């Protein structure tokens, strides 16, 4: 096996080494579990680590490989899963007290597909409570930290998956993206994150935040790894009525091609400029320049309705949240809290006490916003008009895609921000997703890849957007840009934490105990 550490390798490299018999899945899995044990006390990327389960799955794949069974490309490559996806045998908390200790009796379709493809599941990664947030600071179990600077957040909601992959605790991970929860953490941790076309990956078994926006996708260190993982989890699922019943786009082939000659690239006027950090803008413009040099044709496109995208999102999303989260009521599973000083509390009182004790402030804020927006007398003004703006956003995308094959923008307006910096200012936090939200509103696919470091030495994310079901275009363009950037930066961007393993090994508890 080439290279210094097993954990430094991409999933594609591990896959080749496994196929060639140069290593075993048990070895690879153990290497990652060891690294989790030494580093995750600092990073808190995981809420639960399932070392026995992961090793058993790894040994099973090794046995099947030895027996000559045909195996998928990523068989034996371990994966981390955001704690929003249901997993048999592992708790699923959604980062919330209200589901503390709940072990689902069924697997999410994505999880079932990972298992069927032979990927050992290392554990469940941290997130903002019910995926509501952009920093993981809203996790009821404490924030994750950014491997580039542990005083900073890894972004959110999927900061746990992004931090784990950036710090080499897992070669690949699964995230979910409702307004940018895969792509923004990708930008802030220097990883690749993809939100597939809405309906491209089954939502069955993913605890819903906003059903019409949620989409699971890959979190990786390379574009090819993302495509390989996308292929494993994507495709039609009869258990999800919103799943697309058509052959999935050829993403792996596109990621291997990486040719932008003649590709029309649209720079979205509204997603950049004011409010974007200078270093973010600089890296973005350089990347556009690299694509131009490589033969792409750059045009500027305008999507005027994107100016209302954030406001629209904050009507649609909380409305769906208020209904989706109604089921957490202490009657059937999860936390049950009793009101103080009530002898024989009614079901209603127990529900109220449980929801008061079990939900954090951000979740309550969104439930209240959504309940209000759906109320009779307000529905038309809020939810109704938000749906209209949503169709305008989709129309703007349609028009832009007449002029360009893919659209580009910075992924997030800033690099990783400090812990606590935006915690008391929800609007500042919400602005983190200003460039990622339009894709969720229209359902189109988006990809973020690292585009170098900003003036503060922190990674910058470059976002690509493609038309519905044209996810392969993202992978093609991203693979080309990735190659150009590797040349420019002299190799992959590596967070300092990766080189400081020894200094960080300290008193770390057994991860399973913490979960």
């Amino acid at each position: 096996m080439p290279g210094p550490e097993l954990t430094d390798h991409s999933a594609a490299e591990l896959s080749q080494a496994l196929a060639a018999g140069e290593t075993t899945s048990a070895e690879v899995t153990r290497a990652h579990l060891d690294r989790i044990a030494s580093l995750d006390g600092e990073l808190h990327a995981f809420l639960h680590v399932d070392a026995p389960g992961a090793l058993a799955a790894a040994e099973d794949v090794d046995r099947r490989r030895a027996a000559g069974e045909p195996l998928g490309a990523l068989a034996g490559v371990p994966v981390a899963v955001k704690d929003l996806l249901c997993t048999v045998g592992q708790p699923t908390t959604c980062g919330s007290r209200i589901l503390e200790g709940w072990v689902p009796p069924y697997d999410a379709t994505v999880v079932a597909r990972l298992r069927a493809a032979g990927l050992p599941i290392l554990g469940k990664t941290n997130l903002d409570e019910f995926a509501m947030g952009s920093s993981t600071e809203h996790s009821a179990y404490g924030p994750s930290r950014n491997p580039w600077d542990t005083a900073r957040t890894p972004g959110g909601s999927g900061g746990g998956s992004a931090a784990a992959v950036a710090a080499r605790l897992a070669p690949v991970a699964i995230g979910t993206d409702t307004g940018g929860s895969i792509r923004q953490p990708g930008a802030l941790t220097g990883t690749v994150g993809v939100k597939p076309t809405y309906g491209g990956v089954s939502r069955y078994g993913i605890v819903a935040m906003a059903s019409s926006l949620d989409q699971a996708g890959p979190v990786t260190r390379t574009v090819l790894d993302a495509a390989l993982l996308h292929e494993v989890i994507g495709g039609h699922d009869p258990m999800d009525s919103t799943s697309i019943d058509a052959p999935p786009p050829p993403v792996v082939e596109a990621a291997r091609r990486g040719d932008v000659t003649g590709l029309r690239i649209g720079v979205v006027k509204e997603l950049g400029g004011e409010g974007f950090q200078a270093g973010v803008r600089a890296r973005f413009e350089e990347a556009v320049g690299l694509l131009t040099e490589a033969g792409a044709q750059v045009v500027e496109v305008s999507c005027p309705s994107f100016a209302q995208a954030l406001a629209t999102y904050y009507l649609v999303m909380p409305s769906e949240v208020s209904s989706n989260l109604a089921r957490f009521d202490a009657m059937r599973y999860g936390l049950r809290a009793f009101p103080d000083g009530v002898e024989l509390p009614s079901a209603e009182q127990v529900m109220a006490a449980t929801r008061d004790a079990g939900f954090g402030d951000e979740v309550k804020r969104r439930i209240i916003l959504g309940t209000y927006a759906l109320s009779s007398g307000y529905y038309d003004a809020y939810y109704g008009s938000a749906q209209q703006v949503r169709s305008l956003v989709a129309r703007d995308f349609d028009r832009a895609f007449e002029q360009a094959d893919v659209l580009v923008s910075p992924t997030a307006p800033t690099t990783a921000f400090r812990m606590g910096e935006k915690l008391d200012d929800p609007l500042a936090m919400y602005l983190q997703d200003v460039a990622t939200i339009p894709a969720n509103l229209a359902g189109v696919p988006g990809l973020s890849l690292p585009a170098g470091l900003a003036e503060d030495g922190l990674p910058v994310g470059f976002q690509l957007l493609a038309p519905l079901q044209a996810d392969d275009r993202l992978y093609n363009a991203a693979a080309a840009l990735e190659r150009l950037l590797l040349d420019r930066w002299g190799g992959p961007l590596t967070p300092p934490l990766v080189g400081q393993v020894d200094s960080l090994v300290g008193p770390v508890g057994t991860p399973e105990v913490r979960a």
Partner: protein
Amino acid sequence: MTTVEVGLVPFEEALTRYEPVMGLEVHVELSTATKMFCGCPALFGGEPNTHVCPVCLGLPGSLPVVNGAAVESAIRIGLALNCRIAEVCRFARKNYFYPDMPKNYQISQYDEPIAFDGWTEVEVEGPDGPERYRVEIERAHMEEDTGKSLHVGGSTGRIHGAEYSLLDYNRAGIPLIEIVTRPIAVPGDRAPAVARAYVQQLRDLVLALGVSDARMDQGSLRADVNLSLRPVGTAALGTRSETKNVNSFRSVERAVRFEVSRHAGILDAGGRVVQETRHFHEDTGTTSPGREKSDAEDYRYFPDPDLAPVAPSREWVDALRATLPELPAERRRRLQAEWGFSDLEMRDTAGAGAVDLVAATVAAGSSAQTARKWWLSELARRANEQAVELSALKITPEDVARIQALVDAGAINDKLARQVFDGVLAGEGSPDEVVAARGLAVVSDEGALTEAVDRAIEANPDVAAKIRDGKVAAAGALIGAVMKEMRGQADAARVRELILARLT
């Protein structure tokens, strides 16, 4: 509750000052194999919480998938109620917290029902014969049923005062069709009967469609009776009460009468009717207040983002229309015309539950009038004596038709026919066997018999020769031939006499 308890005004007296306006909401549980949005069996009862899965338990992450068979049933019900069928419609979430609802929202339909703008016609008894009333259907929509709560302890069996409650989610997710009428304003004294006839008609209709077992006692057909009064001669609607889960036809009628009396009492006393849900009590025929339905009730409906719109193709709808069975009211009208029955005759036939029996008897060869005569007089009397339904008597329409055929052929007369009925009902065999065994045949046409005997002799010269030679026992073969020709309606002894008279 803010309701002031005031006296009841007798129903007939109330109608001198007020007109009732009714609205009926009927929930029909479909008898599909599986639930509305998951693969669990849609069965009544069962050990609590055994017909459940992540979807109908509303576990985090689970998603609904529409049951196509339920959509088909909904469309067929809509078509049978002369509704328009939506080209595209959506499911909506009805949000409210209740422990027997796993998701704390019910997947239902709101402003886009699958069927709308329909009508049906019901018939009730008037002083001058049957009267028909058209009931306008506003909508029929699809939704999922809730689970069931069992409140233990306390005196009322309701949640208030209970020590604890048990929840059973077997029923959660069973497909329901809710059928909602437009306001029904019929002459007040007909209102209770119209309400009952309408619910009965819906029952007959869903049974004919085969989409539900429509058992009111098991809750697979549930009626809510909305009622308001307005002063006679005015147009504006009064405040309504909603009496929930009235679970027999008779109770529907009684609930309307009681609410008319109760509303009139409140209005006479200068009070205001409270818009509220009420419970009907079978034992006393009265209602009592349930939840107050103030303006605060806001279900925050919005389209369910988990489900794609349902878009039944016109080809499919047309195919379903083409294969609708003949519906009960339609069939009764057709049969009445075919049979030439008067309204009174038809009503008596229907009232005796004899429509199907008469139809089958006619199909077996009888005339409609004679079939009606036997079933509604002779057999109705016997059913009455035995205290059973007509259809439970141990005689088939084919038997009745055969007995009538014997009468028509002159083999028996009406008086003998009654004895044949006795025999068949007593299990002595078919009408022919009873006639033979009891020796009831009458042969009035000696000429026909003589001709038959002559033909038998001619056809069997060998046998005839033997008899002429004194072998009288050989006559049996000729008797058999004659009986065969006479289809068993000849008196065997008389045939023997005739044969011997010719040959000896």
